[in-house]
Structures are given as structure tokens and as C-alpha cells.
């Protein structure tokens, strides 16, 4: 480490000649001239290394100590640069390199989106590109306030957006809007009605008067807890009814699936083309014409040239593979079709249930005319309270 510093600062090897060269060293040490690598050559000769500034400060002290100092060798970066000071081309090239490096680092080559969950990064990048913010843009020309305004207008789901630029990488940070839940104010008179048909198991009315008892059946929309409370003492009051209503509900879901489906038989003919994209410019490498496939799969693979530590270069190679196929019929076994339908029905059922559980489920599968029909009958226990404001 010290050696590196000495190399960068430069060092001078000095010969000290005199009757008492040690005396000269003491004077140097007292006056803050750093030295190292001291060697005795003979009785009157010492050789020492100092920094260039020390060498320049030496003559008066040498006079005082009655010594003669002479330069032996210079080494290190400052002397190297001094030696090449007349090589204008070298200096020009060096400065030019620095300039180009600085200039190119002002352009943004890569955009990265963070903080998005609902809106896809592609959507955000596409909208950014529409307002001119895309790879290759000159960094300082990015006006964050304008981008923010434009983007908030374009994408409703965003509540905040900013662009942080670090060299050639720009990070687009976004925050998404949290949808406002519908909340009825606590002082608004409300009724509670049944959200679904069912058999009431329990009504826990915290506010309001219950209109049905456990064991009764209700139809969708039927009043369960009334917000209108009448009493002899205080008269009629309009309240915000609050209650937990548990009911037994029944679902009958069904789904169909044909047992014969179209499948792909690959003909073995395929066509691959490679496209090099440099800073948004596409360079097609395939000169051969595109073959005429009646039906084909297209697979696109993009390989982006990267640097270590996650940085990427604006160079990517796209490989597009087209594989021709012919449609053919294939059949599915009844068991696997039934399994798939049952899984999808179960998913549908759990999506329908609101704060509830499935008590019993019965699945039946019937095949007719090559179509499998699966039906799911389920008995559930769930919360069916639905708060609606009282009509004025």
C-alpha cells in the first residue's frame, strides 16, 4: 500500500555526502522531510529516498549540515508524466478517451422498473417509450416532473413515479394506487340483507333488530337485520345495522370438456432467424426469405449482452424459431379430463365462498356425445351478511 502511494507521488533517490551525513538526516527529520530506504555507502556517503517535495526542500538544510546532496534517480508517476509532456498526441488521446467515456456514460442504455405489482414492467416501459423516454436517450434531458405527469395520466394505476439515473442505467421507481375500499359511513342508516340463498344457522346482530331466526331459510336480498328500530321509549331510530350472519348454502356447479381435441403434429420443417439489436436498431442476419408455413409455432429467445454486477449492454441477440405443424385430432382419457374439471370447479367454488367452508361436496361425471360433463354439488357454511344503505 505504502509502496503504491510512493509510486503515485513519485520518489527521488538522493546521495548525501559530507563529514556527518547523520546530522543532515536529523535536520531533515525535524523539518518534516520524509525519507526511507536509508543505505550507507561508505563513511561519508548515505543514500536515501525522499518524495519530490522533500528533494526540493533539501538544499538549505544541506548547506546547514555542510553536506552535498545529489540526485541519483527519479521514479514514479509524476516523472513519467513529465517525460511524456511533449507527446501531444498521447495527451490528446488520453483526454479524448476520458471525454468519450464521460459522454457515453450520459446516455441511458437500460431501463429497469421497480415497485410495480399490478402494472407490468412492459406496460410502463411502453408508455415511457411513447413519450420519448427509451434506451439511447441523453440522460440530462430526462425531465422527471414531465415524465411523472405524463405517466400518471397514461396509467391510472400509478400513484407516483420517478426516474433515478445511475450512469447508463435508469431505474424507474413506481408506486401503485391502492384501490379505495367502499366503506359506508358509520352514521348512515343501513340494513343487512342476505347476499345468497341459504338456511340461517346463526344471526349475531350487534346493532339493529334481527328479522329472521336460526333455522329459517332466506332468499337472496331478503332482509335479515333491520336498521329501523322502533321502541315505545324513544320512538323510531334509524341505525347502521351490524351483524354476522352464518348460513348453510348450496352450490351446483358444472363444467364441460370435449374428449377429442386438436393437437399439433410437427412436420419437422423449421426456420430460424437471428436478429441483432444494437441500441434499438434491428440488424437481420438471415438473408434467406421467410418460408411459407401454413401453421407454425414461433419461439423467440432474447439473449442480452451483460456485464458483471448485473449491468447490461444495449446489445441483444434475438433468435426466432418457426416450427411448422399440422393440426391433428387427439383424445383425452376420461379420468384425466374429470380430474382437471374437478380441480377447476373446486377453484371456482372457493372463489365464490366469502368467509366460509365447504361442509360436503359431491362430484359426478357424465359422458355424452364425446363431451364430459362434471358437476359439483357442495354444501357450505358461510357468512352471507350484505350491508346496504336504507332507502331514503
Amino acid at each position, binding site marked *: 500500500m505504502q509502496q503504491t502511494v510512493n509510486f503515485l507521488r513519485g520518489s527521488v533517490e538522493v546521495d548525501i555526502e559530507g563529514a556527518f*551525513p547523520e546530522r543532515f*538526516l*536529523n535536520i531533515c*527529520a525535524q*523539518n518534516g522531510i520524509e525519507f*526511507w530506504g*536509508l543505505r550507507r555507502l561508505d563513511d561519508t556517503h548515505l543514500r536515501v529516498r525522499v518524495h519530490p517535495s522533500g528533494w526540493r526542500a533539501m538544499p538549505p538544510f544541506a548547506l546547514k549540515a555542510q553536506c552535498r546532496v545529489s540526485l541519483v534517480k527519479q521514479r514514479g508517476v509524476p516523472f513519467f508524466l513529465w517525460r511524456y509532456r511533449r507527446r501531444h498526441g498521447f495527451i490528446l488521446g488520453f483526454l479524448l478517451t476520458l471525454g468519450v467515456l464521460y459522454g457515453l456514460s450520459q446516455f441511458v442504455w437500460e431501463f429497469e422498473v421497480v415497485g410495480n405489482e399490478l402494472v407490468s414492467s412492459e406496460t410502463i416501459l411502453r408508455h415511457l417509450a411513447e413519450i420519448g423516454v427509451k434506451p439511447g436517450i441523453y440522460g440530462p434531458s430526462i425531465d422527471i416532473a414531465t415524465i411523472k405527469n405524463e405517466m400518471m395520466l397514461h396509467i391510472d394505476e400509478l400513484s407516483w413515479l420517478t426516474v433515478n439515473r445511475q450512469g447508463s442505467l435508469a431505474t424507474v421507481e413506481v408506486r401503485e394506487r391502492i384501490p379505495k375500499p367502499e366503506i359506508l359511513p358509520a352514521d348512515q342508516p343501513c340494513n343487512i340483507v342476505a347476499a345468497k340463498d341459504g338456511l340461517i344457522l346463526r344471526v349475531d346482530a350487534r346493532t339493529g333488530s334481527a328479522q329472521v331466526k336460526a333455522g329459517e331459510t332466506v332468499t337472496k336480498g331478503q332482509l335479515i337485520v333491520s336498521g329501523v328500530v322502533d321502541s315505545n321509549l324513544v320512538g323510531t331510530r334509524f341505525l347502521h345495522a351490524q351483524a354476522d350472519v352464518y348460513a348453510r348454502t348450496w352450490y351446483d356447479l358444472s363444467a364441460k370438456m370435449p374428449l377429442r381435441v386438436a393437437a399439433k403434429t410437427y412436420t419437422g420443417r423449421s426456420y430460424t432467424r437471428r436478429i441483432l439489436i444494437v441500441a434499438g436498431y434491428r440488424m437481420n442476419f438471415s438473408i434467406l426469405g421467410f418460408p411459407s408455413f401454413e401453421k407454425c409455432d414461433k419461439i423467440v429467445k432474447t439473449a442480452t449482452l451483460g456485464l458483471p454486477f448485473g449491468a447490461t449492454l444495449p446489445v441483444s441477440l434475438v433468435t426466432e424459431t418457426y416450427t411448422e405443424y399440422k393440426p391433428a385430432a387427439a383424445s383425452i382419457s376420461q379420468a384425466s379430463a374429470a380430474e382437471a374439471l374437478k380441480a377447476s370447479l373446486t377453484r371456482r367454488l372457493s372463489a365464490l365462498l366469502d368467509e366460509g367452508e365447504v361442509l360436503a361436496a359431491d362430484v359426478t361425471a357424465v359422458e355424452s356425445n364425446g363431451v364430459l360433463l362434471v358437476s359439483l354439488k357442495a354444501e357450505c357454511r358461510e357468512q352471507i351478511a350484505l350491508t346496504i344503505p336504507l332507502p331514503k
Partner: protein
Amino acid sequence: MSTEREPKKSLFERAADVFDLPADVLAGLPRLEIAGCRRLLMENHRGILEYSGEQIDINGGQVVVRVKGKGLDLRAMNANELSLDGLLFSIEFVF
């Protein structure tokens, strides 16, 4: 410099003894730190009197510190501290 004469203690040295204080801090006495037999660091020195690869005499104020060894090399030196490298054989105090 005769070895028989014992130097008188200075006022500061006596004060350091009385008050149980470190003498190097109070009286500015030389302080030597030796790492193994290869390196020596000396604080509060008053300069070099003699320098060669086999023997280095350092002025320590009231005493001369004589370091003997082989391939001795003065690594660094400033007004207060100096650091030596090389194979150390002996360290003598010469009055």
C-alpha cells in the same frame, strides 16, 4: 561518555516517580517498542548519531541507544519517531 557515571534523575523523572505517572509522557524519555528481533520503533528520539548496517546510535536525550545487528535499515523517521528494520542483536544504553 563513560559507563561508570550514572546520570542524575531530572525533575520531571522524579515527579513521574512520585506521582506514578508514565515517565515517557511526562519527562519525554525515549520509548522503545521491539517486535521480535526484527523491528524496533523508538519514540521521543533526538536524532541519529551514527548509522551503518551493523550499528545505529540514536540520541535519546540523556542516554544514547545503541542498536547492534545485521542489515539494519532505517525504514522511516520524523522529528519524534523512527522505525528500524533488520536482525537485532543487542540494544545498549550508553551514558
